[in-house]
């Protein structure tokens, strides 16, 4: 009943627009106040077509994330809420991603789920899509513009801060550490690093020997750490700000016959297994792959007239010695170079939307 009323509101608004400008302003004003979620005008009916504009599909994290998206779409097809899923892969090229999103607008999809290849580059095309009443749910790598239905992410800055705090506790506030970052110029890697800085400033006893910038892959991280091991006989900790980076670091220590040091990281299966195998002091968190599934769910909820907050922060879990076994117990369900993400269901999504 309520939804039906909401859906007629914008049409009513445009009808009155011709009568008088003042009346339009008033009705338009209340219309926006009543409209459930950003971008959604209420004129789109289920079953919906969803566009999934991926920036790069090759990394395992992306493949797993796409897996949760297609699984969620299958679920929503059963209930008749989703008709079709269109998938694009910009192969790392933000310019191509703009072109893909433009094509999705041209194809008049009902919702676009997107991981941005650049925090700014997609702003204009996404704003265009929003103006057309397409629900935009942006997760993981976020855009700048606020003309989206929802932005979903964990807090990258908190990621870095919590990791740095754990390292301070481990080393008693004193020691030499190496910081491993993702690629330069990428907001996620930048934000995690920035989050760690205040903690490092507050603990001058922790000396940063050097930092690395590599892709979020094991091989380049291992290579970078190997050469750093030759140059630095004394390393007390590795503050790695990405899962695959930590696995590379642990492997480099192992190959060189060096004793393992406290290492931070993510829920990468390789890292968690090495952590257990080498008995090192570890700490990890998680960028859940199911953010993809959650984004699709959120888009459909918004299209159906539910209220959706423009910014949804998904809490970061902590993985330490107390619960790492529970993650490793499910390891065989995930690819060898993949990420062991926590379970998810509709109840969790509803809880996150309600928070």
């Amino acid at each position, binding site marked *: 009943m309520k939804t039906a009323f909401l859906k007629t509101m914008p049409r009513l608004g445009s009808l009155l627009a011709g009568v008088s400008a003042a009346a339009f302003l008033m009705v338009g004003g209340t219309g926006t106040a009543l409209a459930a979620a950003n971008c959604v005008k209420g004129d789109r009916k289920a079953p919906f077509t969803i566009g999934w504009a*991926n920036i790069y*599909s090759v990394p395992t994290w992306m493949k797993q994330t796409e897996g949760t998206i297609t699984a969620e779409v299958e679920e929503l097809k059963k209930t008749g809420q989703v008709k079709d899923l*269109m*998938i*694009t*892969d910009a*192969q*790392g*090229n*933000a*310019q*191509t991603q*703009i*072109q*893909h999103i*433009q*094509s*999705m607008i*041209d*194809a008049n999809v009902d919702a676009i789920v997107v991981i941005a290849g*650049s*925090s*700014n*580059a*997609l*702003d*204009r095309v996404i704003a265009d899509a929003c103006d057309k009443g397409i629900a935009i749910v942006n997760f993981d790598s976020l855009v*700048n513009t606020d003309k989206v239905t929802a932005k979903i992410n964990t807090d990258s800055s908190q990621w870095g801060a919590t990791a740095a705090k754990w390292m301070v506790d481990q080393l008693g506030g004193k020691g030499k550490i190496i910081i491993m970052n993702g690629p*330069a*110029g*990428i*907001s996620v890697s*930048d934000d995690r690093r920035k989050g760690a800085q205040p903690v490092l400033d507050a603990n001058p006893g922790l000396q940063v020997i050097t930092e690395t910038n590599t892709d979020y892959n094991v091989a380049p991280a291992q290579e970078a750490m190997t050469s750093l091991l030759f140059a630095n006989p004394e390393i007390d900790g590795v503050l790695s700000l990405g899962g695959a980076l930590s696995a590379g670091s642990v492997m480099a220590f192992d190959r060189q016959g060096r004793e393992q040091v406290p290492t931070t990281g993510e829920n990468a299966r390789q890292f968690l297994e090495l952590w257990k195998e080498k008995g090192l002091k570890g700490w990890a968190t998680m960028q859940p792959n199911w953010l993809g599934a959650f984004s699709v769910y959120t888009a459909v909820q918004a299209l159906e007239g539910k209220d959706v907050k423009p910014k949804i922060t998904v809490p970061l879990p902590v993985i330490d010695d107390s619960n790492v076994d529970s993650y490793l117990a499910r390891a065989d369900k995930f690819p060898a170079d993949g990420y062991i993400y926590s379970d998810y269901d509709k109840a969790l999504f509803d809880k996150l939307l309600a928070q």
Partner: protein
Amino acid sequence: MTTRSISSSGLYRAIQSRRNRGLGGLYIVVVAFLLLYVWLFPGIVSIGGFSKFTQNWFPLALVTMAQALLMLNGGITLSVGPLVSLGAVIAATSMGGFAGTWGGIAAVAAIGLGIGAITGIIVAHLRLPAIIVTLAGSFIITGIALLILPRPGGFIPGWFSDLLAGNTPVAFCLLLVAIAGWKLFMATPAGLGMYAAGENPVGAFRSGVSVERVKVAAFAISGLLAALAGLFVAAQTGSGDPLIGNPFTLNSIAAAVLGGVGFLGGKGTMRGAICGSLLLSVMINVMFFLGFPPVAQYVAQGLIIVGAVAIPELTAQRRKK
């Protein structure tokens, strides 16, 4: 007088049609894809649809010109992509500040020309291979772009974005201007000299072409085009991104080669290169509307590129037999 002009225009046509030979396959493929696109998405023939499509193609067309004119001169550049990034970064950082929009445009143009000219001087006068110099240049330029703008940001005036990348085909008109400029340049001794120096540097030198100067000019113009592509990308996205241009390097080479421009200089045409870039661009949209899954898109892209290059070669061989 009249007879001479007729015969020279006849000669012109004959030469132009000979230069088009070998591009027939590409033209057919491009037209087929455009028709398919119109069939899949009729909205493309509206002004808005046409504008948006050409806007996405425009920067690739510009960098392809930047690449092709160097390849025609017997060179190559691996710093096209980073120059696009640098152009975008400079536009996004200068337009909001003291320079204003026009100052920003001038800064981008000046830096593109300057970096191009310096690269050209190193290549021409120190006689170093272009591929090495521009590879080194690409690292330096990427570094500078990251120093100026460590992460995406900056500011482009809204009206400027709407002008270049709004719902009007301004970008397409600018491309026509660039093509007209190329035609005019080809009518000058310097333009012909660029071709000649690419095909046969010694011969060109003996015919009075200043080979070094032409090479520096080619690099400078190429740098200008790449930086202007960056300016457009900044307007299109409304901001600067220090890494956005990187994929353009490989794509510009792919488009030029697809368009029949050879690696050894002097062989190929600008129209072919621009058609090559159009094919790369329209292919992305067509495959989206056909609903190909991404993996199939990789395969299809590869097959189309090989096909467009192979068909003219095969027909030429058959003709010889």
